[in-house]
């Protein structure tokens, strides 16, 4: 490992811990005029922001054919989330209001869970793809996907109260609108 790599890693880690607005000032101070170093760390921070969900599920999406027992009881834990109450139910599964408190912050979200027993490979694969799409969608009006754990048949995201959250007509917006229906 080179000294340069260690410097970059150290700065990346410390900058990441700061609010976004303070990172530039931090880097300017720490890099002492070494613009190349500052640019390298900034570039990695930028890619970190785009990397939500990246490499998160492993290449085995299609291998994950196990469906965990649907547990929608209030207070139940699903991954890092705790169920507050059910929001709705459909033929495919349930949508639950969930919250989590870890790492010193609280967050609420909607969690979609496939009905127990609906574990056909194709369905799970489609579900995994939907999660992947959600995780990579970047739009100010779109609620982002919240780091679902490895391959299971549920997916949590921030809760939107209305499905008409899109004002433009990009492809990702159409996808977002489709996905927003279950919130």
């Amino acid at each position, binding site marked *: *490992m080179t000294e340069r790599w260690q410097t970059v890693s150290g700065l990346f*880690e410390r900058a990441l811990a700061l609010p976004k607005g303070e990172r530039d000032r931090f880097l300017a101070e720490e890099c002492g005029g070494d613009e190349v170093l500052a640019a390298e760390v900034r570039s990695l921070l930028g890619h970190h922001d785009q990397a939500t969900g990246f490499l998160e599920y492993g290449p085995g999406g299609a291998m994950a054919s196990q469906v965990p027992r649907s547990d929608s009881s209030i207070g139940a834990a699903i991954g890092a989330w705790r169920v507050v109450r059910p929001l709705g139910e459909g033929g495919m599964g349930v949508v639950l209001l969930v919250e989590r408190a870890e790492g010193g912050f609280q967050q609420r979200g909607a969690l979609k869970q496939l009905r127990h027993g609906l*574990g056909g490979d194709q369905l799970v694969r489609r579900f995994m793809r939907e999660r*992947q799409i959600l995780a990579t969608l970047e739009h100010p009006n779109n609620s982002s996907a919240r780091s679902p754990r490895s*391959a299971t048949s549920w997916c949590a995201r921030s809760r939107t109260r209305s499905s008409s959250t899109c004002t433009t007509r990009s492809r990702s917006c159409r996808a977002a609108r489709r996905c927003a229906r279950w919130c």
Partner: protein
Amino acid sequence: MAATPDLTQTLLRSRRGEREALDEMLVALYAELRGLAAGYLRHERVGHTLQPTALAHEAFLRLVDQRAVSWQDRAHFLALAAQARRRILADQARRRHALKRGGDAVRVALEDVELLAPGGDVEIDALDSALEKLAALDARQAQIVELRFFGGLTLEETAEVVQVSLATVKRDWLMARAWLHRELAEQAP
């Protein structure tokens, strides 16, 4: 393949860093993981898991004499299984690309396509090459990605295998992920 004292001994020797034993373990795991995956395809069972950790665990039970090994040996086995799975997927991705280029006499096994095909958008062979580059910069970060992405291990399990703190794994994971994201973005057409 039944649990054999031979392979158990090979596992122990490979953990001590013997190159030959390491290669032998990888070859055995490569065959075993593919065999298990193919078996599940033929006898698809409802609700049965094909998650990488479950496959690795099953391989461990089948190949290794449980009475003769410690938890560190098991952790070492999981690391080897992640490496074997990475090789299976990378080989498969390269064969697929060869097929796309019109190469003939290249056959992709059905079970590979069905069971091991990447679920996400990640190009496995590009990731494999990027990981090799990362390993030259930071071997531990590359191993952590291998364990998590190819081995399906959680952060906690990864910490156990690599024998570092959970905080270190989290930190390395974030840095490696950002670096790989950039590396693959730059390669993308």
